[in-house]
C-alpha cells in the first residue's frame, strides 16, 4: 500500500531518489490522514541547508500543528509552490503532487538509514 520507490522516517516523512541527483521529500498518507485538513505549510527557502532530522517546516491542520523533519541532509533546491498555495493537495495526493521540497543531498547514503515501505508498514502496525 505504501509506494516501494522511496524510503520512510519514523516521523512519517518520505524521501524519494529522483535519479537526477536530487531527492523529493514529503509526508506519508498516514501523516496526512492523522492531521486531517491541512490549511497552511511553513517550508524553508530555496538555498537553505538542513541536517538529517533537523526541522524542515511546519504543517498546520484545522486541529493541530506539527513539525516536519528532514529525512536526509542537503540543500533545498526547490519548494513545491503548488502545495504552498493549495495545501489540501497534500491531503489528496501526498506521494505525487503533494511533495513538499526537492533536496540536493549532501550525504545520499543516509537514505539507507530510513525504512523501506514494508518496514514502515510494520512500524505503523506497532503504533496500533
Amino acid at each position, binding site marked *: 500500500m505504501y509506494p516501494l520507490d522511496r524510503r520512510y522516517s519514523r*516521523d*512519517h*516523512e518520505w524521501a524519494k531518489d529522483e535519479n537526477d541527483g536530487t531527492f523529493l521529500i514529503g*509526508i506519508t498518507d498516514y*501523516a496526512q490522514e*492523522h*492531521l*486531517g*485538513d491541512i*490549511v*497552511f505549510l511553513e517550508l524553508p527557502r530555496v538555498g537553505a541547508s538542513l541536517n538529517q532530522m533537523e526541522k524542515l517546516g*511546519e*504543517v*498546520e491542520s*484545522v*486541529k*493541530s*500543528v*506539527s*513539525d*516536519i*523533519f528532514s529525512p536526509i541532509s542537503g540543500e533545498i533546491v526547490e519548494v513545491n509552490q503548488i502545495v504552498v498555495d493549495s495545501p*489540501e493537495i497534500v*491531503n489528496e495526493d501526498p506521494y505525487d503532487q503533494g511533495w513538499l521540497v526537492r533536496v540536493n543531498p549532501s550525504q545520499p547514503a543516509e537514505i539507507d538509514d530510513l525504512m523501506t515501505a514494508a518496514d514502515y508498514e510494520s512500524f505503523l502496525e506497532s503504533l496500533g
Partner: protein
Amino acid sequence: MTQQYESLSMQEESNTLKRTSLFQSHVSIGAQMLPFAGWEMPIQYSGILAEAKAVRFAAGIFDVSHMGRVEITGRDAAKFIDRLVTGDVLKMVVGRARYTIICNEAGGIIDDTIVYRLDEERFLMVPNASNADEVLAWLNHWKDTWGSQIELNVITEETALIALQGPLAKEILQPICSVDMSDVRPFRCVQGQISGVTAIICRTGYTGEDGFEIVIPSESAALIWKSFMDGGAIPCGLGARDVLRLEAGLLLHGSDMDSSVTPLEVGLERYVNWGQGEFMGLPALQESKSIGLSKALVGFRLVERGVPRHGYHIVNEHEAIGTVTSGTYSPTLDMGIGLGYVSLEFSTLGTRIAIDIRGRLAEAEVTAIPFYSRKR
C-alpha cells in the same frame, strides 16, 4: 512529523470513557473517535472542513449526547432556577428556551447553559458535558439548602441529544415531524414526534446557523440519526462543531471562561438581568460593575497567515498582554480567528496586536464578534 499541539484531544484514561447510544452509528461510518470530557466522541467523519461547509450551506448532524440533561420539575421549579441563573426565568412562557449563565456567589461562571420551559412546572437544563456533575451537585446543594419543592431528574443516560443544523435543517426535519416547524421560532421548544418517536424539539444550536437540538429516547437514537442522514444531513464531529461555534462567536466554558471570570469580563453582560429580583452572584456582579473591568475577552483575526490556538500569548511590542483561549482556521472567512483575554486598554475594536505562534509573531487585529453571522 511530530504533533506539537492538538486542540481537541485530551489526555484521558480511555478505559473509563462513556459511550453515547450512537457509538455504533459513528464507528460504522468511519468516524475518528477521541476522548472528550470523559466521553468517547466522534471528532470527524469525512473531514472538518467538508463538515463545516455542509452546515454553512446545507445541513449537518451532530451527536451531542455527551452534554448534560437535567429535568427540573415541581411547584418551585421556575423560582428555583431563576435564583440560580443570571437571566429571568419567571417571565419565560411554556415553549421558550433561554441561554443563561450559572454563577457562584462571587459572580464566577460555573457554566453556561440553555434552559427550556417544557411545562409550567417542568424545565430542561442542558449543562456542558465537562460541567454536568458539578452543575448537578450545585443544584442539589441549593435544593437542600433552600428546601425547594422540586425534583431533579438526570435524563442523560436514557436520552440522546442530536443537533440538526444548517440552512436545510427545517426541510429535512419537517417531512418526518408531527409539528409544523413554522410555528417553532428560534429559542422555542415543543414536544412532538419524529419518525413516530416522542421527542423534545428545540430551535437552538451552537453553530451560528438555523437548526434544532432534539432530545429522544436512547433506544431510538440510531433510527432518528439515520432518518436525518437519509434526508441529506452530513454527519459532523466535534472538530467541525468547534470551528463553527468559534466563527459564530459562541464561547466554550472551560476554554474561554471558567469560575475565575464573571459574565462582565467575557462580554456576556447582556445575559445578566440587572432588574428586580435576586440571583446567585448578583451582589458580586453589581460590585464588579461599579469598580469597572481590568481585562476583557476580545475577538481577533490574523491579518497574515497562521492559526492561533489555545494557550498562545497575545503580544504588543514583544510584551505579553494576554492569552488566546480559543483559536482556529476559519474556513468560512479563510483566515485565522480567535478569542482571548487582554487588559482593557487593548480591547478597543481595530487595535493592532500580535499572536506568538510558536516563536513567530503574527499580526492580528481586535475584531467584533461574532466573526460570522448568517444572512436572515
